[in-house]
Structure formats: structure tokens, C-alpha cells
């Protein structure tokens, strides 16, 4: 398995923590997080919320059944599940901002030891906009960032302090990388799981802040 696959498979296991109390309403960010939909554990009745105005996303449509009026937040054609509802963007973000979405998975460029997230803008590069990411991190009850542990050039992505402009301050609850699962706690980052044969030493070496093992 490559890093992306390790991350997505481990992330999907987070869905096992959902229950009738929390509800099963989950928002998957655009890009890699969308792939989590293919790995939902059996028996977990996850309902996917799409911030463009849909609750109950089904699988991609069969060839020839694409509907231009039926897309997800990544602008991909999708289908509807039984019990789907459609609504406008104001109600969609009322759900998100109002804390009705139990869990969201988002990609990250940088995460700090305090749970700050940067994932929308690299100064000097073309700015595309934050879309719904700032609302999701501010509103979802549990925010999980999934990303490769280090940048391609080996630079830290998990930092004492983000150098990139923030998407949200103190918003991340958990980070899942191909190396480990880290929780953001009052005391700092705490490793709750090591993946793929990593050790405390290898994880710490790839992480700027001190990790509690």
C-alpha cells in the first residue's frame, strides 16, 4: 500500500466511533478524503453530507446516468441514496456551523501542535479560495486531518506553529498520516497509534513538536 492508501484505510476506521448518540452524519473534504467513502466499515450507516446542499450521497452514477444537476462539493457527478434530501447552501452551512455534522475529514498542508490547520493558501502561489473548509473546521464536532506526514521535500508538516495562513485556529482533533495517528491534547500531540511499522523514534524525527507516546 502506498501512503495515501494507508491513510485513507486508517481514516475510514474512525467511522467506527460513530453511534446513535453522535449521529452518523459525516462530511468528506474534497480530494483524498472523498476516497474514504469507498472504505466505510460494514454495518456503519454513515450518511454523507455535501456542503453544496445534499445529505445522503450515493455512489458515482452508472455510465450514461450522470445528471448535471446532481454533483458533490468536488463538482463530481454522484447519485442519491434512499432518504436523500436537497437544500440550499444557507441551510447546508447551518448544519455545519451549527454543530450538526458529527465528523469531517480534511486534507492539510500544515497542522500545529495546538490544532491549528493550514490547508487553503500558499503565499506566492495562485489563491483559489477557501471554499467551505473554514466553515467545516469551525463547525463540525470532530475535525480529522488526513495528510502525508512530511512534505515531498522532507519538510515538517506537523509543526510547533504553522507558517502558512490558517484555515482555522485550534480546530483539529486528530491527525492521521501514513506513520501514525496523533491526537491534539491540552498537553500537546499524543500518539495513539503507530502505523506501517513506525516507531516512536521515527515518528518523532518526522515531527517538529514533541510527541507524547
Amino acid at each position, binding site marked *: 500500500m502506498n501512503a495515501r492508501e494507508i491513510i485513507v484505510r486508517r481514516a475510514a476506521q474512525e467511522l467506527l466511533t460513530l453511534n446513535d448518540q453522535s449521529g452518523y452524519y459525516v462530511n468528506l473534504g474534497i480530494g483524498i478524503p472523498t476516497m474514504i467513502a469507498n472504505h466505510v466499515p460494514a454495518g456503519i450507516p454513515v450518511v454523507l453530507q455535501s456542503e453544496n446542499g445534499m445529505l445522503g450521497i450515493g455512489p458515482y452514477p452508472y455510465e450514461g446516468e450522470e445528471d*448535471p444537476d446532481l454533483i458533490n462539493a468536488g463538482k463530481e457527478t454522484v447519485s442519491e441514496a434512499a432518504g436523500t434530501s436537497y437544500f440550499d447552501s444557507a441551510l*447546508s452551512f447551518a448544519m455545519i456551523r451549527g454543530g450538526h455534522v458529527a465528523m469531517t475529514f480534511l486534507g492539510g498542508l500544515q497542522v500545529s501542535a495546538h490544532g491549528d490547520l493550514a490547508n487553503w493558501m500558499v503565499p506566492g502561489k495562485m489563491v483559489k479560495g477557501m471554499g467551505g473548509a473554514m466553515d467545516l473546521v469551525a463547525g463540525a464536532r470532530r475535525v480529522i486531518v488526513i495528510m502525508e506526514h512530511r512534505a515531498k521535500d522532507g519538510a515538517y508538516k506537523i509543526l510547533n506553529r504553522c507558517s502558512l495562513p490558517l484555515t482555522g485556529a485550534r480546530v483539529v482533533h486528530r491527525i492521521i498520516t501514513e506513520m501514525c495517528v496523533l491526537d491534539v491534547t491540552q498537553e500537546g500531540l499524543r500518539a495513539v497509534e503507530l502505523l506501517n511499522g513506525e516507531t516512536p523514534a521515527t515518528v518523532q524525527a518526522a515531527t517538529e513538536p514533541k510527541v507524547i507516546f
Partner: protein
Amino acid sequence: MNKVYPDAASALTDVPHGATVLVGGFGLCGIPEEAIFALHDLGARHLTIVSNNAGTTEHGLVHLLKNAQVKKMVSSYVGENEVFERQMLSGELEVELTPQGTLAERIRAGGAGIPAFFTATGVGTLVAEGKEVREFDGRPYVLERGIVGDFALVHAWKGDTDGNLIYRKTARNFNPMMAMAGRITIAEVEHLVQPGELEPDGIHTPAIFVQRIFQCRANTKHVERRTVRKRTP
């Protein structure tokens, strides 16, 4: 009360230079394409456009950008559009980026007579710079302003001649809020029907928010990302 216009050109004829125009749609889904073409052909310039996206390089609001009609865009996400990128980098185009949920709420607020509200979205980020931040029950929130427009352009699936609208699936998106916040709201509809033909409990935008309505001619729809699965034989 006659709200019905024969086509987009007649409905949009009085949009002046410098107008603020709210435009429905998410990506290319649910955009009022015939109204955008008419606005292009009529040629009003120095427009402020409020729309979640700015179209792609080929479709949607890009036609107004190419025609140098847009002074400022208020949006949440503007990728996938090279014309936009070029004009923004050259300084031709002023851009106000606002988080998607805050944008939706600002427009609804404008339409609902609410000049400002507090939200946790964007606190501690560039978005909150220069804005009031205040704590309620121990959590900080930023003050955001309502948005109203001189005109709103929306696309609906069905509309009646009174101006009641029903949208279809995720083509609803920003359209209902834009309709609320336009001083003059112009609706293009795929199917124009008589009052009484729409189920009163199923109307998404009540007629009071719509000043003009016309039936689309071509009704082309674009798919940005065609994703499908194969049938197992």
C-alpha cells in the same frame, strides 16, 4: 402583475454599469447561463459580481470576465478558471474571498434584513483581519456583514408566472439566497407554468422574492467532473 419576460435580453436590459449582481450556482451546476449570456451581450461594465465561483475557463461567468465587464468578484472558490487567474494577478480584477458558509449566510442575511451577524468561521485567520471579534459564552466569533444586490440572477427548474420557483437536486445551492437578496431578482426557468400548478408546500422560493421570470431557450447544462462507475455485466 406581469413578471413574465419573453427572453433574457428583455429581462436584463436595464442592468446599469457599476451594478452589484448576485449570481446563483455552484461550479457550473444551477448557473443562470442564459442570463449571463444576456448580461454579456448587453455589455454593462464595472460590475461587482457576487457568486460562489467564477465559472471555468470555458463556461459561466468567464464570459463576463473575458469581456472585461467585471470590476470585482466576491466568491469563496475561484479555481479552474485561467481568465480569472490572469486578471487577478494583473490587478484588473478585485477579489474578495469569503468562506462558503459565511458567503451563503451573508447573502441570506442581506435578503432577510439582517445587516450583520457573528460566526466562528474564520476566527484567527486572514478572514477575520480588520473585523470585530467578540466572545459569546467563552468562544470567539467574527462579525460579518449582510450582502444585498441591485440584481440577482437565478436558475430554477420550474417557475410559475407569479414567480414561485422550484429548484432541482443540487442545482438549488446558492439560488434561493440570491433570489432573497436581489432588489430585482430575475429568474430563468426550464419550465414556466401557470399559478396553481406547483405544489404550495413544495415551493422553494416564494413569488415575493422574484420580480422577473423568463423561460430558457436552450437549457444547456455542463458537467465539470464526469465521474461514473461501470455496470457489472
